[in-house]
């Protein structure tokens, strides 16, 4: 029996997850820029410093490489750090630590050391923050063996993935889309952990499968609703986890719908949609009635003005028209 659902934001769901982790496991602590006194760039961690104190809520200097690396070391030594890199844009400064240490040491040491580290970061465009603050690189990170890559799109996942990620012996990167923080919905007050593997079928349909994740999931669902009005029934898959990918759910869906549209905000060439599309081509080739299609971010540094930013990433309308052209080619 689940408790009564409460109205809550995605931001609040993440915060509850962090608070629960801190309360349940003394090895858990938080580290990142302005997570304490400032309350977090996106206000996710507001109040936690007061509640848990400075030892466990650690404001860091602007030193992405050092504090991510310190998180790796602390995890190797048995703690369970949650490192917040304020946004994915700044994570490039810590990439060497993530790739060459976190993702590599377990294998390279012959399994002697695990890196049970969670790194959270905000990702995505849509707030007119321009080229250096609007990257969508979660799909890019999904190239790295040794990492697990999560992209919670729903309140349940925002609330439930963190605890599972902390139980995982591997470095887990959680990408929270900036445009989701204010999203409201209902969540049972006793909502708990959810598994961090497997995709979720968020909508059933028969005419095409829309494969997506993160903020684009909600655009895809809105598009699917409108498409239904036109007689096109889209199945919508939320990947949830970008590494490892859940091939089975995708393959099964395409066996039903025979058409695939993959949607992500990242740059098209070499993005996660390419991987998914190629897997579909490899595994579902004979099930397909049409070539797999993808709708991605334009291959440009994201510009500041709203009309250009909007034009640079998938929107409900562009999803609808892509889906329509896939199902009803002219």
């Amino acid at each position: 029996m689940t408790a009564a659902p409460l109205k809550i934001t995605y931001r609040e769901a993440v915060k509850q997850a962090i608070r629960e982790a801190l309360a349940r496991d003394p090895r858990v602590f938080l580290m990142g820029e302005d997570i304490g006194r400032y309350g977090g760039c996106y206000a996710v961690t507001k109040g936690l410093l007061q509640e848990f104190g400075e030892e466990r809520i650690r404001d860091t200097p602007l030193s992405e490489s050092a504090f991510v690396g310190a998180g790796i070391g602390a995890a190797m030594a048995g703690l369970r750090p949650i490192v917040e890199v304020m946004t994915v844009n700044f994570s490039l400064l810590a990439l060497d630590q993530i790739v060459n240490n976190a993702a590599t040491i377990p294998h390279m040491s012959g399994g002697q050391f695990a890196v049970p580290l969670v790194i959270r970061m905000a990702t995505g465009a849509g707030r007119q923050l321009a080229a250096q603050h609007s990257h969508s690189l979660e799909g890019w990170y999904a190239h790295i063996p040794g990492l697990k890559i999560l992209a919670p799109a729903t309140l349940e996942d925002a609330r439930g993935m963190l605890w599972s990620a902390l139980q995982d012996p591997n470095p887990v990167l959680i990408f929270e889309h900036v445009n989701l923080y204010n999203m409201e919905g209902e969540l049972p007050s006793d909502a708990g952990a959810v598994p961090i593997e497997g995709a979720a079928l968020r909508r059933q349909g028969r005419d095409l499968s829309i494969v997506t994740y993160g903020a684009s999931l909600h655009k895809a669902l809105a598009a699917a609703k409108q498409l239904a009005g036109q007689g096109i029934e889209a199945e919508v898959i939320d990947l949830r986890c970008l590494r490892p990918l859940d091939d089975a759910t995708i393959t099964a869906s395409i066996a039903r719908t025979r058409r695939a549209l993959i949607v992500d905000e990242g740059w098209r060439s070499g993005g996660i949609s390419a991987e998914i599309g190629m897997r579909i081509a490899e595994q579902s080739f004979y099930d397909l009635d049409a070539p797999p299609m993808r709708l991605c971010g334009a291959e440009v540094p994201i510009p500041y003005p709203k009309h250009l930013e909007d034009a640079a990433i998938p929107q409900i309308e562009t999803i609808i028209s892509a889906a329509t052209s896939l199902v009803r080619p002219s």
Partner: protein
Amino acid sequence: MTAKPHLDGAHARRLLGQMIRIRLFEEKCAELYTRGKIRGFLHLYIGEEANAVGVMEALTADDSVVSTYREHGHALARGIAMGPLMAEMYGKANGTSGGRGGSMHVFDRATRFYGGNAIVGGGLPLSVGLGLAERMRSGRGAAVCLFGEGAVAEGEFHESLNLAALWKLPVLFVCENNLYAMGSAIERTESETDIHRKAEAYRIASQRVDGMDVVAVEAATRAALEHLRAGEGPQFLECRTYRFRAHSMFDAQLYRDKSEVERWKERDPIKRFADWSVAARLLHKTDIADLEKAAAVEVDQAVAFAEAGDWESVADLGKFVLMDKVPA
């Protein structure tokens, strides 16, 4: 060593006028932000104007400037026209960067303004390269790199200072130490809080200056540039300053006391320099009113310029992702 610059009335008017222009421009930006005309991140420089104006006053056209996301003051003081700057804040095609950069990414080739940069510390290596280019071409220019004290913790600070010093490049590092990086007080981010002393660890000559005193900043900059142009290698300037406003428009300022802000406001660089100029009989009270009026008019014109600007066509979204030539 250059002495404190001998100020005449014209000089005082210029310094004060620049500071007032910046102040009024930014107050207007804040207003336009609440009206939704400016979006994204907006970082105001209010309270810190003396740094930009003092530094830029000492530069020549040969010098180049590398800035941060808090760069409106730097841009205006460097000579970028207010209209295109405001249009950039709007994201209009008649903005300095064609509207693509917005508040954090003002670029201007004509004044060798190598950009606002929204990655903390991201501009430091660029300035080393600009200094290197100057050196390799035997130019007379300096590369002036402005950054906040928060950037000092980044590895780029360390690598850049070492490289500039090692190669004796003409780079002037200007650290605008406003005591906070977002909500992090410097005591909470640096084990050694006396920043200008860090420069010594690279054997870079450094000065600390009162960043609320435009004349002091100008004098220190001139002194530094003199050493630099004499081939003595990079110079370091720490400007002790304070931002009166929030970090950005999203900041509830939980991390500092109102009283602290009020104390610093008593040292408002504009009021202070205006009072001093009047007391020193360099300016008349009416001069000040005139400057304020002129700046207000300029701001209004800048808004009108921005309002009148066009939006870049969506068809041009991909333009300049790859350049087809190096601009002359």
